[in-house]
């Protein structure tokens, strides 16, 4: 049998096994190192800081956990959030993330490594990404072999789709959830393969951890039943499936109910019903199997038909009845928006106002996954070739995740692992085929008929000893290289099968010589290389900005930090009373609580739509209307974000329409969105702005004294690109208290009622020495006397 290149033949199998094992360990460590290192751009370019919005709450909660202990955290009632309502934090969060950090913190401190809790929080996501790489390796190993596993680990380690949610400082639930997702799936596959209750229980435990960590656990709750159901429908019911599923469902559901935020949802909401239904179905099928072993097949047929119909009808009726009675909650709005992308915009503007709930733009698939996205279908196709139980899982996962990733940007995160797995399977098949030195035997012209049959099945398989088409057990790469009778049922064969359907056995097929191999392999390595470059570029430029700190460039090319947010928050923290209530749009609630340490009206935990609408109403109505709202809520300071001076586009004027919409949802009589547009339907802030816009508190606070800054020149808003009226708005009920260096954050103090009982507008006019209008009779003053 000819070889394309020589292989060492004097190696003992033990040496090969040990060497490959060592190489795998080294490769995995390097992959972990790369995964961690590529997430540190944010720390190196900026500093060790918590990013974005939600992580600030998680960080704050973790600090409570680290400082006061677990029970204090569990019972934590936070009176400063949702003022004056407060928030029961312990019962309204997924505590897995904080508990993880707390455990790490306590372990490190017990080892006399007094690492700051902030650094633990910042570096938790990179650390867990290394674990994700490892669990993806384990998962993919079950699909194909170790070499595919290593490739998958490398892919998930640096794929921007996952990095986007797990850079250092992005201290959010997703940071640990993807590891848990992959490891739960791995345990599930393992349990299904071995039929082991131990692995089923392990699946349940990691499922519990996942439930405690991320709301996205519903994905597992539905993926596993879907897989089980598909297997049953394919006629692949087995006792292994029964054991794996039952042990997972029973223990996992009970465990998940221990999380207070989840509570009885697993038995009362529609999202969890699939798991329950499949559990019931499995029992029935198992019972049917049992019955079949005891009765004759004819009897069994009729029993089966009858019982399936009866049970199906009963189950559906029971489900409908329970939903109707309110025992089972119907689908939530967030869930509906997964099927109808326009749903949220119509009915729940607060969900639609979050940018990560928008449908995905097509380019972002390429940006987040680069060449993986077009290798991915090939990997899924390859799964069909063998179609073991676990391959069915990957196929289902791929289909479901692809759909969800298209619907919602943030669900790109759940798609990324399966893309990495499938792409790794495909890519590793390609490499296997072309690295394999075995060449087709040209001299052996007359192939045996058995081999011809095999060749017809998979035309590119090497007609060597006839074992090419049978699925071999996953073997180690090194071993494969030495063994002469390896299967090369790879990607190449699939492609060849597609382009040459007439697989005649007259000519030996395969890869000849080194040049062909080199061509393909160099091309493949080039793709990998560009993938690395792409990932590094995307990570460093797009995903590593803390968004609390903005970076710009000085004329000389050096980095200039715009730190207005922290400037203003720190001012609040240091120079206002500890109990001063700050009102702002909900986006900044967590940051104010975390950095300024002041009570806020609304924050990013958007559980009370009315409260948010109240803030929206205060922001979008005139001073006279807003002032009583502010006073009734004890608001001391109002904070707005204004990017008009330096062109920061994520400011409150650009979010203003959402405030109007949300307020309109609750007070349709008082706030109407069309009033904030010009008659032509334009959104303007210049002279042509409609009166509702110009009188709104938000507009006034944003542009208060803005035109004065330009010293007589025409003031221009650099975000909207419009000219700001020379005569700026005046404020009677609020005082400008602080404005940050680049005017991004503006803080206003709410005036107290006038001590003389005048309304603030006339009091203000009096202060400025303006005459009262003569037409106004002095009735009020007389009444006082």
């Amino acid at each position, binding site marked *: 049998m000819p070889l394309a290149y020589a292989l060492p033949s004097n190696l003992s199998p033990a040496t090969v096994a040990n060497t490959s094992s060592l190489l795998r360990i080294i490769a995995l460590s390097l992959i972990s190192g790369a995964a961690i290192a590529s997430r540190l751009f944010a720390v190196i370019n900026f500093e060790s800081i918590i990013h974005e919005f939600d992580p600030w709450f998680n960080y704050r909660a973790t600090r409570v956990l680290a400082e006061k202990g677990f029970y204090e955290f569990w019972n934590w009632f936070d009176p400063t959030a949702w003022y004056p309502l407060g928030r029961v934090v312990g019962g309204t969060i997924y505590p897995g993330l904080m508990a993880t950090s707390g455990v790490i913190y306590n372990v490190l401190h017990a080892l006399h490594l*007094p690492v700051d809790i902030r650094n633990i929080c910042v570096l938790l996501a990179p650390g867990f990404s290394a674990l994700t790489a490892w669990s993806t390796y384990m998962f993919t190993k079950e699909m194909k072999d170790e070499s595919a596993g290593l490739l998958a680990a490398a892919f998930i380690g640096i794929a921007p789709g996952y990095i986007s949610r797990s850079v250092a400082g992005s201290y959010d639930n997703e940071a640990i959830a993807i590891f848990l997702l992959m490891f739960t799936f791995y345990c599930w596959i393992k349990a299904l393969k071995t039929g082991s209750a131990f692995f089923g229980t392990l699946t349940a435990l990691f499922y519990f951890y996942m439930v405690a960590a991320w709301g996205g656990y519903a994905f597992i709750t539905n993926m596993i039943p879907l897989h089980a159901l598909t297997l049953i429908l394919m006629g692949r019911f087995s006792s292994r499936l029964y054991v794996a599923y039952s042990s997972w469902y029973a223990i996992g559901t009970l465990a998940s109910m221990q999380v207070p935020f989840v509570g009885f949802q697993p038995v009362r909401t529609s999202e969890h019903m699939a798991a329950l239904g499949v559990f019931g179905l499995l029992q029935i099928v198992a019972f049917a199997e049992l019955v079949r072993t005891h009765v004759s097949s004819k009897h069994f047929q009729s029993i089966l038909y009858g019982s399936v119909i009866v049970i199906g009808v009963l189950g559906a009726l029971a489900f409908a009845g329970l939903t109707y009675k309110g025992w089972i909650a119907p689908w939530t709005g967030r869930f509906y928006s997964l099927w109808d992308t326009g749903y949220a915009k119509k009915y729940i503007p607060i969900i639609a106002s979050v940018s990560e709930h928008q449908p995905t733009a097509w380019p972002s698939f390429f940006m987040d996954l680069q060449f993986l996205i077009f290798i991915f279908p090939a990997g899924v196709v390859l799964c069909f070739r063998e179609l073991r139980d676990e391959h069915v899982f990957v196929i289902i996962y791929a289909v479901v995740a692809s759909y969800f990733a298209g619907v919602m940007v943030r669900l790109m995160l759940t798609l990324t692992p399966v893309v990495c797995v499938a792409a790794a399977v495909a890519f590793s098949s390609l490499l296997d085929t072309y690295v394999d030195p075995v060449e087709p035997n040209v001299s052996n012209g007359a192939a045996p008929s058995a081999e011809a049959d095999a060749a017809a099945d998979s035309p590119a398989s090497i007609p060597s000893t006839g074992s090419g088409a049978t699925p071999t057990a996953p073997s180690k790469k090194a071993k494969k290289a030495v063994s002469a009778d390896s299967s090369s049922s790879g990607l190449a064969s699939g492609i060849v099968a597609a382009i040459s359907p007439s697989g005649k056995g007259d000519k030996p097929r395969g890869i000849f010589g080194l040049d062909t191999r080199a061509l393909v392999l160099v091309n493949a390595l080039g793709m990998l290389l560009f993938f690395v470059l792409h990932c590094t570029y995307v990570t460093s430029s797009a995903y590593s900005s803390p968004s609390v700190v903005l970076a710009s460039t000085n004329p000389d090319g050096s980095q200039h930090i715009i*730190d207005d947010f922290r400037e203003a928050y720190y001012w609040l923290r240091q120079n206002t009373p500890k109990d001063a209530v700050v009102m702002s749009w909900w986006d900044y609630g967590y940051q104010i609580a975390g950095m300024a340490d002041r009570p806020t009206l609304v924050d990013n935990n958007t559980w009370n739509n009315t409260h948010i609408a109240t803030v929206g109403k205060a922001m979008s109505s005139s001073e006279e209307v807003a002032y009583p709202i502010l006073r009734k809520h004890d608001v001391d300071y109002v904070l707005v974000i204004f990017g008009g001076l330096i062109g920061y586009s994520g400011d409150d004027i650009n979010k203003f329409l959402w405030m109007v919409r949300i307020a309109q949802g609750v007070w349709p009589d008082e706030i109407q969105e069309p009033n904030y547009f010009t008659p032509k339907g334009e959104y303007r802030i210049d002279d042509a702005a409609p009166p509702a816009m110009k009188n709104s508190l938000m507009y006034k606070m944003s542009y208060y004294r803005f035109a*004065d800054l330009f010293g007589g020149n025409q003031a221009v808003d650099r975000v909207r690109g419009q000219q700001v009226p020379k005569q700026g708005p005046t404020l009677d009920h609020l*005082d400008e208290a602080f404005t940050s260096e680049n005017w991004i954050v503006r803080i206003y103090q709410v005036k107290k009622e006038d001590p003389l009982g005048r309304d603030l507008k006339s009091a203000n006019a009096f202060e400025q020495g303006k005459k009262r209008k003569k037409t106004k009779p002095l009735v009020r003053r007389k009444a006082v006397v």
Partner: protein
Amino acid sequence: MPRHWRAPLSLLFSLFVLPICTSAANSFENTAIVRTVELGGALVHVTTTYAVKALEDGSSVYTLALGEQEHARTSWLEAKLKGQPGLLPLGDFGYHPESGVFLYTVDLPKALDTNGTANLVVETVLTHATYPWPREAAQKDPQSLKYSTDLFVISPYKTAVQRTKIRSPTPTVHSYTDPEDIEFTTDSVVTKSGATITYGPFYDIPPSATQDFVDAKQKQITIHYDYEFPIVEITKLERTAEISHWGANLNIENKIDLHNAGPRLKGHFSRLEHQTQSYFGRTSAHILPGMNLMLPPGIHSAYYVDQIGNVSTSHLRTVPSVPKGSNANSYSLLELRPRYPVLGGWNYSFTLGWDSPLEDYAGYDSATGKYVVGIPLLTPMPTAVVDEAEIKIILPEGATDIDYFPPYPALSESITKHITYLDTIGRPQITLKYRDLTDKHTGNIYVTYKVPFRAHLQKPLAVATAFIGVFIVALAWKRVDIRIRRK
């Protein structure tokens, strides 16, 4: 209040000296006293020159008296002979209830014979002696302060002539007291020329460190003057110096609570006005946009952070370290800018730290086998007062025979245990507490200690043991088969 003297060594000594210096007030006579007050913001420097004549042979202990208000404000007191660099030893005799004054003794270098004279220069630094007036100022307003003090310098001895000069930092003096019914003078009590206001001369004042004199003759004078710099007050300073022998590093970290003690801001802060002011270079006196700090030479890895992270608005210019013992006056300059301009009444707290090579501060005394480390008590912040200071010195793990010599006696001192990275038994930590420190309070805290060779090895041994433990567990885990059934 730390001062530059030692407390009396024994009660016996104090019982012996006290009657002499109070009752026998006739051992000296002041031929002239000139007090010069340099007005400032948080700190006021007072230099008093006593021209002393001895009335008895062998008079060597001169007694100073400070009024109650003066004493409460004094944070620094030193005495020397005019024209000579050496400081004279001071003794604190505390409050003397009969006369209502605080007494200090100065030991003259050699005893004076009758009619022998000496010129004694006493320098004091007062803190919290001024207050802003008006109490509130708008962002554009200027800043002016008031300072009040006693008219007469009190002394247990007779004084032939004395005068008080008060120098304002600017010629703009809004007002000053013109006391009436003053006995010891014939001319006008007060004259003003430029920025200097002179009270006196007053002639033939009897021993004035008595309750009677203070009640009957003493007057308060008040100066209202313009001050063009922000008044920096550090309400709390936590300074930690950590010595590492393995890293050959001295880490110094200052946690600083800064407060602008100028007039409280009236109304609100307007960024527009601030930007206009800074554009035209006319920032109001009470706004503190930043300050320059002189850090030691040779430092590296400096950090300037506050509770919510790094503050990116600062520049550090480092210089290489200078050889020990040289008098080269080089320092690293830190241009420190708070996140926001600190206006009157505002606070800003931050942490400032750096690493320096340990060899710049430490030495080894082979005679005693001890290490000697000199740690600067403070990083000087010009014109600032530190209200409360807590200074911690963390020695290497396993240090024994610890002695420390602070330049000024601390209010409280203790040695506790501090546990940090990879420690097994913890490190000794010296804690010293002070109040009312000024930029005069330089000097080093000298710490001597021994570190046995075993203690040096403790850390690598502990780490090595931990790792070996992990490997052994891993080894056992791989080798031991816990399955019930063979595969």
